């Protein structure tokens, strides 16, 4: 088992911030943790890596108890960039990891080349946010981990760097690394995975395996009230957007059938917007109430 989390609970004083998390991952995959600020994503990652104590439950990573420091031979945690030593160079950081992990120093160059770092001799205090993120990624992958945990790795990255990071993560996944990524960048999440854990108030609200091939339509009609009535009569699942568009999934209603229905009832179709059901859509449905009837 790569990740085994059983009824994980964490409390700050009297308030429960993680309320019984269960996650099981036994084959390499990319999993995204998505949720609004304060939903418990970073706390979950910190509890998993024993940076925070847990109050109840059990956490095992790569088959070992999470409080066993030896897990970090196979698990890497890409954290906030404030963990870096400002007075040390990027090379110092990587060298330290190599020494601790007993990795030959010759592993540094290929990793830097892969991530695109060419400023290793500079002190970290002079790095930009993006440069720090690159270094953190290099530090996280230099030991070729079985499990890679990433907390907001895309923060501060320009589009080119974001693409590079995405490709590296996809390559690592292809090489057999399991990746658990927490991010607010839902477009990037969509490009990385369709396995998403939506978190809210310390709980996993939904474990979604989004079908990215499933089309979603938002249609602007001349009389949306009439259209709504017809669809309700037919018992078809749909929703109305805040711009009074009729929204439905291809699974529930074929587009041709919808067009025929509207034509038969003399409702003019003014515009059809074809969309994928992605993380953002699902996020809106879950957390912002958009799209619900």
């Amino acid at each position: 088992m790569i990740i085994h989390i059983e009824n994980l609970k964490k409390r700050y004083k009297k308030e429960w911030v993680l309320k019984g998390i269960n996650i099981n991952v036994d084959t390499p995959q990319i999993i995204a943790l998505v949720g609004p600020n304060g939903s418990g994503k970073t706390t979950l990652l910190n509890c998993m890596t024993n940076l925070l104590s847990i109050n109840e439950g059990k956490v095992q990573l790569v088959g070992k108890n999470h409080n066993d420091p030896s897990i970090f031979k196979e698990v890497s945690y890409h954290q906030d960039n404030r963990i870096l030593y400002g007075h040390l160079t990027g090379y110092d950081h990587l060298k330290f990891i190599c020494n601790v992990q007993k990795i030959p120093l010759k592993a540094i160059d290929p990793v830097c080349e892969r991530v695109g770092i060419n400023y290793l001799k500079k002190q970290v205090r002079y790095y930009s946010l993006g440069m720090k993120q690159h270094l953190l990624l290099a530090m996280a992958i230099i030991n070729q981990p079985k499990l890679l945990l990433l907390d907001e790795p895309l923060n501060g990255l320009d589009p080119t760097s974001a693409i590079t990071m995405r490709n590296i993560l996809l390559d690592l996944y292809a090489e057999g690394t399991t990746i658990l990524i927490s991010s607010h960048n839902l477009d990037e999440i969509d490009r990385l995975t369709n396995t998403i854990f939506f978190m809210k108030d310390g709980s996993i609200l939904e474990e979604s395996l989004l079908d990215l091939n499933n089309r979603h339509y938002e249609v602007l009609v001349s009389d949306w009230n009439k259209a709504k009535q017809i669809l309700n009569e037919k018992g078809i699942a749909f929703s109305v957007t805040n711009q009074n568009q009729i929204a439905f999934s291809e699974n529930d209603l074929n587009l041709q059938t919808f067009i025929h229905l509207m034509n038969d009832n003399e409702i003019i179709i003014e515009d059809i917007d074809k969309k994928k059901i992605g993380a953002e859509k699902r996020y809106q449905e879950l957390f912002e109430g958009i799209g619900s009837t």
Partner: protein
Amino acid sequence: MNNLIDSDKNDEEIIEEKLYLLDLINESEMKVNALKEKDWKTLLDIDLKEEENSMYPIENEIKKRDGYYTSTWPNLFTRETRYKMNKWMAERNIQPVFRYDFISWMTIYDIAFQDEIIEEIVKIRIVKYDSSGISFLNHVSQYIFGIVGAIFFLFLFGDIVTKEGYGKYGPIHFLKTMPIHRGKILISKLITILLVSMITLLIITIFSLLLGTVFDRFGDLDYPVLIYGENYTHQLIEMSSFLIQSVLLFLMVLLFCFSLLFLFSMLTKTILPALGLTIVTVYIGITFSENAIKSSFSSLNPFHYFTVPKIITNELAASINNFDFSFTRGLLVFFISSLILFSLTYLLDYFSIRHFKKNRL
């Protein structure tokens, strides 16, 4: 010279007095020559001979063991230690730190004086200066190896734990996600801070020695240092041993202070409160301990051992007549106290009581 001799005396007495004065002049000339030629052995031998030929020869007095218990200057202990120190220096041809005559020496057993003038003279003359490197280093160590030095080092390296970001995001969380045991992280920090302190002490030592050597001379590593013993006994050790012991004990003082700081750092997570609490604790500890210095277990209290030179010379032990206070016990007490504090710190870290602020979920 005739003017110096009383006219009422008979010839025999006058001759005797003349001879005495001639001896005195010869002796003074010998002293001046010895001083000019830096012949310290001759200089000290003259002084030793004077002590041996005095009205109460020192060797006889020591054999009788009479006079140790008087508290009036100079008691036998004071005479004996001065004699032994001069003998030590004469045997090794060591340059004495001037002044070195009999009114320039007192010990802790000299509590009362015959009169105020003598007291004033002695107390002025016991303050001795020498500009050699070793002597300068000794003076510097007297100031550093105590509470002042401990606070200095606390301010210098005190942020080693808090700057890592205990309680907030900081490099400590990088270390904690490495395959290293948490206790090892704390121990390595403690070792690092002690090593850095040692290097700083080494720099101070080299600087002091260089300064003295450049402007005067290196000095004598085997200069005698008086160590008080039980029942008015004593021993002399070389200055080099004294300095090494002082450094060792002071490092243990630092170990204790840093262990205390680590504990407070773990509790408060920020440098200033941690530093403030450490200094206040040490100050309160020393102040309150002074009131209880005569209790049975006082030698187990680490706060008594902060005046390092007084511990090494057994001055503290002799002044309260409790020779449980010693250099070795000091080392042991500091080590055990630090171990307890360190274990508490480790436990606090282990249970991660307040690692992160709640607003960073």
